[in-house]
């Protein structure tokens, strides 16, 4: 017999022995699965139970799964757990799970194992992967019953991602808190410098008045009592001096009023806009009649406002609507409608209108869109109006097509909402 034949014979005998051993094991019930080589690779036929769906579930799930004995030794593990521990699966099964528990979390791990065996338990702790990397995990274990093998079924959830998200969230929250604190600091800084500025403006206006009064008084005396000793040219110049001084006086008066909107304002209280509006019309009766204007309005609501300032607001807007009239007799219409807990008021006129480029500018102090003797004023009416509206938490703006009139809108809080806020404030206090 040739060496080749002898080797072949030996190989066949060996295979036969393996096959016989396998057959005997199956006959005697010692095997629980048979492996068969096929075109698609090796297939496994389980001899006992219809466990297939459970097995697929365990093998494919995104969490680590293990069956432990009562000492914590791993009798079965899925690939996900092996990947989490950075250890080949064949080095995971048969070893104790404690091998991957770092020393400092071992007491915690043992406590969990004890409780899990008795009544089922969860724990969150760090495992140490083969590389030494700490992996935060959630352990959830439960015993299938006394005397059953395995003693414990465990799901191991990798918490790295959710920890990262938590950290990120915490960092963002901290950032936000810091930004907020900075904003609050800047806001209070701004409020302080604003208050200082207001006080400055008020003091300045007050102090400017004294010398101006002297100029005005003596100029008037000069014009009333000494007119005879002046020639025409001197009288003309004196007229200019008086005109300029009176205009300066009106500007200072306006500036004082402007600054008093915040310094002398009273706290908002429920105010009947209807009554206040009728009062404003009465105050402006002379102007309305001399302009031949018609002023109409729809029923107006109760709002939270300083009544004196609300009156001023209506007066300024009405006077404006009449003052900037076009070729036709002025027609002014006023109405209000609810918007998001506020009332939005509209004051519509048929006047000359406002160019788009001026629609923001006209609300600033001393800014005027139209000049000339037919439009007297110091350019403070709308500035005061805006200050009043903003002090009440509202907004004011104009919509206009030049030549087709303007509509001034402003918003004020409704009395209902503020009553609610007051009640809330009272409870908190």
């Amino acid at each position: 017999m040739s060496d080749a034949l002898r080797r072949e014979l030996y190989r066949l005998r060996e295979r036969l022995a393996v096959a016989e051993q396998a057959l005997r094991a199956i006959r005697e019930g010692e095997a629980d699965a048979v492996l068969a080589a096929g075109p698609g690779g090796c297939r496994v036929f389980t001899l006992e139970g219809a466990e297939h769906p459970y097995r697929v579930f365990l093998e494919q799930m995104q969490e680590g799964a293990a069956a432990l004995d009562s000492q914590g030794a791993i009798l079965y593990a899925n690939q996900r757990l092996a990947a989490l521990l950075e250890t080949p699966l064949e080095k995971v099964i048969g070893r104790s799970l404690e091998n991957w528990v770092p020393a400092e979390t071992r007491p915690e791990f043992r406590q969990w194992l004890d409780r899990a065996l008795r009544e089922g338990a969860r724990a969150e702790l760090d495992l140490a992967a083969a590389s030494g990397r700490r992996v935060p995990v959630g352990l959830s274990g439960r015993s299938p019953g006394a005397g059953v093998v395995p003693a414990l079924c465990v799901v191991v959830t990798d918490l790295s991602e959710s920890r990262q998200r938590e950290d990120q969230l915490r960092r963002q929250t901290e950032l936000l808190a810091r930004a907020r604190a900075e904003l609050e600091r800047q806001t209070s800084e701004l409020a302080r410098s604003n208050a200082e500025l207001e006080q400055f403006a008020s003091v300045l206006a007050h102090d400017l008045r004294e010398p101006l009064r002297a100029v005005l008084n003596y100029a008037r005396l000069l014009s009333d009592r000494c007119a005879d000793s002046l020639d025409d040219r001197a009288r003309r110049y004196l007229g200019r001096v008086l005109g300029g001084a009176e205009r300066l006086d009106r500007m200072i008066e306006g500036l004082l009023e402007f600054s008093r909107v915040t310094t002398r304002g009273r706290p908002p209280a429920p105010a009947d806009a209807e009554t206040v509006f009728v009062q404003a019309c009465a105050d402006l009766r002379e102007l309305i009649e001399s302009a031949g204007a018609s002023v109409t309005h729809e029923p107006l609501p109760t709002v939270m406002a300083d009544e004196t300032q609300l009156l001023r607001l209506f007066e300024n807007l009405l006077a404006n609507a009449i003052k900037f009239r076009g070729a036709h007799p002025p027609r002014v219409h006023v109405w209000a409608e609810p918007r998001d807990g506020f009332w939005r008021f509209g004051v519509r006129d048929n006047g000359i209108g406002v160019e788009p480029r001026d629609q923001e500018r006209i609300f600033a102090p001393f800014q005027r869109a139209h000049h000339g003797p037919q439009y007297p004023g110091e350019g403070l009416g709308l500035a005061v109006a805006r200050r009043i509206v903003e002090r009440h938490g509202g907004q004011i703006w104009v919509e206009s097509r030049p030549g087709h009139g303007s509509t001034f809108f402003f918003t004020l809080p409704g009395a209902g909402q503020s009553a609610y806020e007051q009640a809330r404030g009272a409870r908190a206090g």
Partner: protein
Amino acid sequence: MIRLYISGATPRSTRAVEALKALAEELGESCEVEIIDVYQQAARARQDNVLVTPTLIERSRGAVRRLVGDLSDSRRLRAALGLAKV
């Protein structure tokens, strides 16, 4: 080198793992054990010509010893591993 082939968490496979684990502890560091789940690592089973599970394979000095079953018979297990009776 000792290799145990198992098929998932079936009763005989888990018993075999337990038995081998106990023996490995007894033997200490001296023996290297690999436990292979044929469901998840089928190619390995083919290399060792494993037909059924659980199968224990022990290789030393070119010789291959096999034992099929749940390894609960410690006498047969020790014989398969070439260990003397204690």
